[in-house]
């Protein structure tokens, strides 16, 4: 039922009121849906364009006191062990979590997601399957477009949905197996963590390979600052996802990490963890041991 205060564009409302049917599912996924008793009712999508990037350390410049990061976020300071030196010796460094980047990302993603779910609700759907999420940077000025789409489905011969539809990245036979294994889909989850690295002298020298000059050892060592940042950025995304699961399980998780170098010694790591939040609806019943076969072509 279209909501007068709905934030869906007019074009979407027209598309739905015409009663036509479009689906992003492949042929076999479509057949599998029907097998499960799920009737596809339409393609649904949500968009959101976000802009950020106004907040950055460069505004503070080097030599300023170490940034304290976002409240309660990850911060780690690195102090130069060499004592004095010249003005272009990086006597301190810092890793910190960029909470504003994560917040902006979360806002953009959640807006796109809720718009997609709203379209699904308009169609009276119980759930959305085969969700595809993509982010496209629109230009170099820090504008990113979030786009989520999926196929809204109705459970056949069931009362109209009373709650927010459930969602999942899965579709087709894989989704059928998830049900058979005893799980019910709850929602897709995607979470992002962002850590900025301001290298201090030791990191800089190790990366450039001139560590030998400045250290007491042979110069070969683990590059602690980067290792800390890389491990933290993954941990942060995983911790956030785990805390939003409330005891449910995350299936088919995918962890991706990307790195960017703004200038020498100024790095940013971003991790993105996505997966399907599911909940058990029946007790664990293991299947029999699979029967191996050799296929003759």
């Amino acid at each position, binding site marked *: 039922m279209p909501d007068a205060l709905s934030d869906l564009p007019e074009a979407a409302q027209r598309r739905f009121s015409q009663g036509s049917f479009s689906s992003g599912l492949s042929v076999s996924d479509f057949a599998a849906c029907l097998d499960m008793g799920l009737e596809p009712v339409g393609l649904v999508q949500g968009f959101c364009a976000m802009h950020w990037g106004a907040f950055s350390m460069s505004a503070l410049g080097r030599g300023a006191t170490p940034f304290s990061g976002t409240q309660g976020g990850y911060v780690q300071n690195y102090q130069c062990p060499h004592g004095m030196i010249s003005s272009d010796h990086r006597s301190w460094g810092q890793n910190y979590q960029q909470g504003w980047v994560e917040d902006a990302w979360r806002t953009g993603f959640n807006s796109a997601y809720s718009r997609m779910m709203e379209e699904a609700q308009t169609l009276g759907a119980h759930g959305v399957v085969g969700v595809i999420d993509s982010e496209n940077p629109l230009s170099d000025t820090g504008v990113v477009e979030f786009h989520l789409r999926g196929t809204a489905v109705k459970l056949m011969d069931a009362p109209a949905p009373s709650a927010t539809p459930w969602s999942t990245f899965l579709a087709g036979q894989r989704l059928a197996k998830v049900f058979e294994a005893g799980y019910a889909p709850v929602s897709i989850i995607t979470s992002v963590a962002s850590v900025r690295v301001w290298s201090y002298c030791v990191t800089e020298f190790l990366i450039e*390979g001139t560590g030998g000059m400045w250290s007491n050892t042979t110069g070969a060592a683990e590059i602690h600052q980067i*290792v800390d940042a890389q491990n933290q950025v993954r941990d942060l995304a995983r911790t956030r996802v785990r805390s939003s699961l409330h005891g449910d399980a995350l299936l088919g998780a995918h962890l991706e990490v990307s790195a960017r170098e703004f200038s020498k010694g100024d790095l940013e790591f971003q991790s993105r*963890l996505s997966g399907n939040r599911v909940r058990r609806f*029946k007790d664990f019943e293991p299947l*029999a041991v699979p029967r191996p076969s050799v296929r*003759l072509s």
Partner: protein
Amino acid sequence: MSTPASTPRPSLRDEVRRALSEPLTTVDAAQSMTSDLSIDEELNLHSIGWEPVELVSAVSLHSIPYGYWNWGQGEIEGASSAHATAFLNATTRLLHEAGAAGGHGVVGVHIDRAVHSTFVEVSLVGTAVRPVDRTKRLERSVFASDLSARDFTMLMIAGWEPMGLATGASFVFAPRRTMSSTLQQQSQNVELTNFTEAMYSAREAAMQRMQEMAIDMRGTGVVDVKVHEGPMSFASHAVGFVAIGTVVRLASPTHQMINPTMVVSLNDATVAFDAQTLS
């Protein structure tokens, strides 16, 4: 691939209806499970009484001092040891995380390695797994393996168990180009024995280091060994050899035969979908 259970199972539609209609059972918030395994892989694990616990990951970067890639002869020890240390640190961290989550091992480890001129980077992501029956204690140290959950299942069914990941790396200088000038004068049918010796020793060193790790882990074999070799992108006169495999040993007294069935698939191309059958 799985055989149906002996009691009649509810139909798929009934299961889906039940899943989506019942008020969902309350769960223990401390028990959240995260896994990057596909549902097929999870079902494989369940069939041998194991389950995924948590997605785990670890990264290590180790530096290579300046000047190591310049012209030289023989092995580039700084690079070989940086690779070994980075791999070891990343694996140790990964196993620690897995153990803390209650895992007995990590399967499906995706290994991302990069050798740059000044450092080696190793990044590992996998899913920690454990027996469903929590009374089964961990008798030995946590293992990591790049075998898929499915391969892990098959190995266990056959009575073997993984001990860990073994790796061996060696980086050497390729024999020098100056040799080639003498080649012009020579007739064509000739082996370049000095060159052969240099490459041989590098390959052997990498394999041997991997074997030594396997012996340290008290394994009896290494399966699914992958050998990566080639010149460095930043220094084409330097060549690296890296061998990685999963160390195994027999858990049961003898190997268990799996007795596969020979099948001939009658599938042709997929059946075309007829839109008119939709009402």
